[in-house]
């Protein structure tokens, strides 16, 4: 673009020149055409309710923000109260506000983004209020047994109030004050909270009676329908109520925050009526029973006393009986006195006799007899023992004799040996002591024969005791055919035996 100083403007082609209003209007049309019906998921922030009833807020996500508005007609029919931080899905159109160079979304429908979002909100609020101690069981007030006036906070039309009044009428008709409120939608929470506070404000002076108990009730519905009873303003009003409060919101499975803070939770509106009043007919029956017992007991008080007096009078003993009994007892004792003395003497005598008896000769005699008996026994045992010993010795002697016999030198002679004696009759045990030509006596088994000793003796080392040597010489002479060696052998065999046996015999004897 160029200028040449004074007013002349060089045109930039044939572009149309708009006024601000024109361009703004064009923009508005474009936007509204293009975004006439959109759904936006967003988080609410800066929610503001104007006096006019319109609700202003911002829709935002993590990067962008769009202003939003909800006109009164729409806002009052929302199933929940829009509040900051709530994630919602809005349906509506985009429009611009030319006077401020702004654009915004006009929301025609708004709902929480899923039940999860509402539940999370509920959970968070519940935690916060619990932390304040609003749900503390110690805060709960007892429900009066028979209230005169019952205040009911609910919709004045519909099944709920009808159910409550019906059940109250069945059980115990009472004076009921109904505070009409909206039970869902815009403003419901405020109305409910105001009603609870309003009932508490009645002081009974201005013509209206103050309720003894409150029932806050609503029929079943979705979580959004029941949402007003989760609102903090309602929960706080219920917590602040000085009048005991029964909550009955939705069905048994629905639990709203007012149920935590109420003094008693009823599962249904009908249940609330049942908890509020007792059954009149049952009370009448109890009263009838009590009055009957009262009348009966009146007569009984006197009658019982008369009966007891009569019974006691009858139980009083007659003076004669009292004396008689004592005198009988005296007689009895007098009778027993001498006898008891005799019994003592008898007992003592008995004991003395027993002691004397123990002193007699009987025990001495008994000791003697016992010893005699033992002596006799021992003597009796002595005889066989002695005999047995003799037998043993005699047997041993016999055996020894037999052994001696067996081992005597005569038995040796039986086996072919001979005994040599010199002329002096001395036993010749050493062959070397004999001279050639010397005469010796040789004794055999059966007889003795004289013999002459031949040449020199042969050396016979093993037979050192001598006697066998002699025997060997003799035997050589006696058996000339046998060789020297065989002769020696035979001597060797027989030689030692007599000597050994001699020793054994000695030992035996």
């Amino acid at each position: 673009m160029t200028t040449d100083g004074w007013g002349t403007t060089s045109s930039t082609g044939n572009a149309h020149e708009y006024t601000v209003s024109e361009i703004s209007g064009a923009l508005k049309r474009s936007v509204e055409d293009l975004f006439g019906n959109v759904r936006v998921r967003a988080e609410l922030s800066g929610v503001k309710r104007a006096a006019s009833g319109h609700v202003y807020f911002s829709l935002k996500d993590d990067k962008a923000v769009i202003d939003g508005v909800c006109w009164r007609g729409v806002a009052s029919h929302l199933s929940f109260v829009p509040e900051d931080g709530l994630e919602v899905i809005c349906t509506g159109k985009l429009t611009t506000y030319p006077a401020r160079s702004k654009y915004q979304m006009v929301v025609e429908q708004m709902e929480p983004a899923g039940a999860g979002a509402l539940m999370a909100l509920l959970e968070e609020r519940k935690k916060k209020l619990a932390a304040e101690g609003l749900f503390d069981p110690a805060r709960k007030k007892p429900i009066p047994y028979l209230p005169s006036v019952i205040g009911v906070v609910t919709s004045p039309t519909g099944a709920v109030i009808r159910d409550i009044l019906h059940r109250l009428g069945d059980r115990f008709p009472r004076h009921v004050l109904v505070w009409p409120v909206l039970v869902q939608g815009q403003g419901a929470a405020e109305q409910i909270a105001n009603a609870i506070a309003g009932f508490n404000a009645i002081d009974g002076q201005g013509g209206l009676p103050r309720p003894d108990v409150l029932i806050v009730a609503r029929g079943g519905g979705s979580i959004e329908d029941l949402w007003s009873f989760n609102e903090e303003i309602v929960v706080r009003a219920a917590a602040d109520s000085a009048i005991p409060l029964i909550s009955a919101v939705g069905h048994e499975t629905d639990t709203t925050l007012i149920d935590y803070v109420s003094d008693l939770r009823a599962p249904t509106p009908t249940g609330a009526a049942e908890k509020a009043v007792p059954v009149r007919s049952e009370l009448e029956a109890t009263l009838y029973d009590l009055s009957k017992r009262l009348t009966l007991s009146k007569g009984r008080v006197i009658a019982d006393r008369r009966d007891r007096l009569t019974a006691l009078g009858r139980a009083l003993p007659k003076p004669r009986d009292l004396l008689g009994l004592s005198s009988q007892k005296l007689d009895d004792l007098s009778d027993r006195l001498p006898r008891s003395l005799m019994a003592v003497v008898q007992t003592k005598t008995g004991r003395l006799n027993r002691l004397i008896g123990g002193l007699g000769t009987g025990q001495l005699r008994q000791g003697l007899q016992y010893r005699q008996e033992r002596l006799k026994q021992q003597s009796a045992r002595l005889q066989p023992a002695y005999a047995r010993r003799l037998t043993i010795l005699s047997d041993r002697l016999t055996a020894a004799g037999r052994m001696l016999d067996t081992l005597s030198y005569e038995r040796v002679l039986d086996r072919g040996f001979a005994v040599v004696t010199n002329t002096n009759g001395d036993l010749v045990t050493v062959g070397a002591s004999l001279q050639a030509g010397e005469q010796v006596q040789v004794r055999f088994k059966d007889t003795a024969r004289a013999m002459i000793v031949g040449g020199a003796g042969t050396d016979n080392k093993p037979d050192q005791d001598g006697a066998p040597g002699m025997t060997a010489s003799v035997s050589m002479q006696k058996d000339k055919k046998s060789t020297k060696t065989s002769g020696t052998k035979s001597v060797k065999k027989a030689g030692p035996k007599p000597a050994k046996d001699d020793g054994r015999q000695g030992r035996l004897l």
Partner: protein
Amino acid sequence: MNDKSKPISEMSFEEAMAALEQVVSRLESGNAALEDSIDLYTYGTELKAYCETKLRDAQAKIEKITVGADGQASGATPLDVE
């Protein structure tokens, strides 16, 4: 006797009923002194009459609160829900 500390007319129905029950069981037990038992009986009949009145007078009265400009209850009008 703590029941007598409060005038019957100030008692709740429940209190009067409990007092009557106590009177009856004391009379029935025969433990009350003779002079006392006559007083007790009289007291019991009064309690009974009071409870009967309370039960007999029970009538349904259904009203709707009208709310004033200040948000407080300003009055009540009969409510017909049928």
